[in-house]
């Protein structure tokens, strides 16, 4: 809240006349307190990441010295090559990129079609269907995972990426909601004008609506990227062959095999976390936008 403008009015009112006026000094005091609290918190939040990177460059012996040495001496870059040599991390990364790319495209296609449908057409049962879709956001994965697994097993999809990406083509509720909200803000006249010019609904959608909806689609793409990059449970269940594993499963196996080798573990963790961190910083404005639009985090 903006105290400075509010407090200037306070003086005008007898009811508040005896309240202490907010002087410049008080305001500075408040700002200082805010900074102290927030900066202390920021340091606490950043430490785990610094700690990870720092450990990833240490010699094993340095990990076990107290007090903590924050700057590795010397920088042991070879931890990274050792990590890549110990496990097929390159393969895991390539797999994750493939899986994530397909997943993002699938989410975009499925959710934008359904989102457009919910935003643009009047039909009986639309409200009910939309409510059902929102309600399914609350259905925990764990209540449906067993039959899904059995189903994918029956049709021979285990150990492929199909169970991981095919459902996204059928629209995910959160993304559909987000895109639908965006389309609701686009004037209907745009569709009508294009239709009057002889465009089919599909042409209106692909040539006009998709380009307009770029901001919403970008947010969906970012969220899907994080979902697929981080997802662990489903790959763990559906994939069996090491050479298909994404980085999440790879890191898990690596960690259980290398229990005490903290420098190598932190090196592979750094490799796994770097892409999300980079994407976060490149697109952080959009991210925040997404939270504001929907009030939901990924």
């Amino acid at each position, binding site marked *: 809240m903006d105290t400075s403008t509010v407090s200037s009015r306070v003086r005008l*009112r007898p009811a508040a006349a005896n309240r202490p006026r907010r002087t410049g000094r008080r305001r500075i005091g408040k700002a200082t307190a805010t900074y102290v609290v927030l900066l202390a918190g920021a340091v606490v939040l950043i430490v785990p990441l610094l700690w990870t990177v720092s450990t990833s460059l240490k010699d094993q012996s340095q990990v076990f010295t107290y007090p*903590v040495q924050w700057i590795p001496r010397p920088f042991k870059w070879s931890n990274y090559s050792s990590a890549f040599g110990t496990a097929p991390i390159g393969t895991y990364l390539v797999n994750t990129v493939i899986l994530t790319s397909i997943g993002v495209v699938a989410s975009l296609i499925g959710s934008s079609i359904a989102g457009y449908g919910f935003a643009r057409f*009047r*039909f009986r049962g639309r409200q009910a269907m939309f409510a059902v879709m929102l309600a399914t956001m609350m259905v925990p994965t764990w209540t449906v995972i067993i039959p899904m697994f059995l189903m994918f097993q029956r049709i021979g999809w285990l150990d492929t990426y199909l169970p991981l990406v095919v459902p996204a083509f059928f629209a995910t509720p959160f993304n559909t909601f987000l895109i639908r909200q965006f389309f609701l803000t686009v004037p209907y006249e745009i569709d009508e004008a294009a239709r009057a010019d002889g465009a089919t609904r599909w042409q209106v959608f692909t040539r006009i609506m998709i380009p307009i909806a770029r901001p919403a689609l970008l947010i969906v793409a970012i969220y899907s990227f994080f979902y697929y990059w981080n997802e662990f449970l489903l790959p763990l269940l559906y994939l069996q062959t090491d050479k298909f594993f994404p980085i999440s499963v790879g890191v898990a196996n690596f960690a259980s095999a290398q229990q005490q080798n903290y420098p190598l573990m*932190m090196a592979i*963790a750094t490799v796994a976390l770097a892409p999300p961190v980079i994407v976060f910083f490149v697109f952080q404005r959009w991210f925040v936008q997404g939270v504001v639009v929907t009030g939901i985090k*990924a």
Partner: protein
Amino acid sequence: MTSQQLSLARQEARAGYRWVSPWLIGFILFTALPLLASFALGLTRWNGVGTPHFVGLDNFIHLFTADPLFWQSLKVTVIFAAIYLPISLVIGFGLALLMNQRLPGMALLRTIYFLPSILTGVAVAVVWGFIFDKNYGVLNWALGLLHISPVPWLQSSFWVIPALVIMQLWGVGGSMLIYLAGIQAVPTDLYEAATLDGAGWWSKLRNVTIPMTSPTILFNLVLGLIGTFQIFTQAYIMTGGGPNYGSYFYALNIYDTAFQSLRIGYASAEATVLFLIIVICSAVVFRWSRSWVYYAGRGDR
């Protein structure tokens, strides 16, 4: 309505069904049918091969009367939620209030706070497993600076839940941002009116900010509750549910029953109970929320 308008409306409706049909098919295939199948399988004994053996409500009776692991996993999950949700609400909301000031550098601070909340999954669990290391972890080192003796975070069935709460709180920036959006949506004239009435900082918070953001708070609470019942990766990677089942979350129990012991029928019963818990909890929270959530003239949602 003329017949031409009618046919146009019908055309539009038909097109509408076509456009949402992918969602509808996906909903039936990947949510509705699996949910029904879960209920049905919950009534059987089955190891995944051959035909399921119908046993009626036996699984449920056994769950509630003769399965200490079921109660343990429920206890762990509920305790975690009872500690984590209030703390994350208070910290998240408090941070949002602090961030909601026009001061230089706020955008940068917001970014720093938000970053950890998008980092989830295995790598983060591995990192925190090391942070919590009793002898060489950075947390005990920091506590040592305050002359607090090392805490066996992940080796004690008492400390493991607080440890996982701390780890989860690392991502509090996510809820902070949601609250911040809620707070910034509060019309400023409400604050001006409150000030004219002589309201102080606390009274404005209690009578304007909190009521006006209560839908956001409710929303976060419900999602947080559901999220707690889904916690899996952290426990699976860091503790395997231990020590002594101290972090045996409900989801871990389902995973073990279904995919390690292959007791498909029994695991489906557990999944069904989870579904009922979520439905009942959400219903209770929504009912309870009527007494404190304020919807400003919004009838449609």
